[in-house]
């Protein structure tokens, strides 16, 4: 996309192939902070096709190991901020790889909430019927023609509309 910062991003390259790219984050939370992203423009996780999801995360695993070993880190986090409410900053889906050391001061944690048994059961009743069945995409022969990125149903449009407002 023309006005997307991530689509244009090439500085400090770490990895590139036909589907994805990984670069150092320009304003890192720690030295070696990397973002991995699809070369095609997708705004949120749900829009990214399975093949690209597979590639991004299997490469992210290898990059995590490379960062851990080459910079002698104590650990790594893999983080996706999907949607404005989740802290998404750019209009383009990215996966963060964040190197960690003891006492680095990064707060990537949460205060657990205490739910009653009733509250837990309510959530289970709402979520399970939708979560337990994953639609397998039909296997289609590969087409060469240009395609519009997958359009999602209405339930995701509000996320995309929010994100379009990001310059």
């Amino acid at each position, binding site marked *: 996309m023309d006005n997307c910062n991530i689509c244009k991003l090439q500085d*400090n*390259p*770490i990895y590139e*192939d036909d589907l994805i790219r990984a670069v*150092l984050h320009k*304003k*890192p*939370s720690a*030295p070696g902070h*990397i973002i991995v992203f699809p070369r095609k423009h997708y705004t949120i*996780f*749900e829009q990214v096709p*399975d093949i690209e*999801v*597979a*590639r991004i995360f*299997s*490469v992210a*695993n*290898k990059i*995590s190991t*490379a*960062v*851990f*070993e*080459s*910079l002698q880190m*104590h*650990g*790594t*986090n*893999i*983080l*996706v*901020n*999907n949607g*404005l*409410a*989740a*802290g*998404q900053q750019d209009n383009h889906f990215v996966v963060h790889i*964040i190197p960690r050391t*003891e006492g680095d001061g990064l707060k*990537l944690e*949460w205060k*657990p*909430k205490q*739910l009653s048994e009733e509250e*837990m059961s309510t*959530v*289970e009743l709402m*979520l399970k*019927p*939708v*979560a337990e069945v*994953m*639609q397998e995409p039909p296997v289609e022969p590969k087409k060469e023609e240009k395609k519009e990125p997958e359009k999602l149903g209405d*339930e*995701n449009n509000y*996320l995309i509309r929010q994100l379009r407002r990001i310059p």
Partner: protein
Amino acid sequence: MEDPAAIEEKLKSMSPEELKEFQKKNCIFCHIISGKVQSKKVYEDDVCTGVLDINPANPGHILLVPNEHYAIMPMMPDDVIARMFQVAKHLSQSMLKALKAQGTNIFVANGVAAGQKAQHFMIHIIPRMPDDGVSFSLPQKQLTDSDMDEIAKRIRNRLNDLLGIKEEPQQVAGKKVANVQTDLDAVSKIFKNG
């Protein structure tokens, strides 16, 4: 309770297979997957299982774990990683639909310093609402260009070793620049599952 020193001796003398069996026997997530320990499962297939976290960041927080016992991510085969994150995408979408979540975080902690608590690999899928009291704050720092160059070079070299890729440096406008355009055929063979 067995004496800790005796346990340590026992562990030292175990083969990798015996050690793995020992870990599984003492792993609460393996017990959850097998049904020995009660849980609220919301997703299950051949590769992985998703359960509701009983101490959630937000209601609906799912822990997605591989059915096979892997303690850390580098030990996991590419096809299992691929499948698990495809499932994570589906579970994220389920939260948007069923819980009217306004966003989701996908979070993995590799190593104690990164917040890893259990000895069984897991992906956290966390539904988010505005002002829910949860924050994955990513502070922004500035490094010098030369530091960035050095860091990128070190990571690329290690990564290319891990992937078995040979990198040829090339001249670009008088400056030696690493050729990151790797052999696409070699790379797609490594990730032949997609």
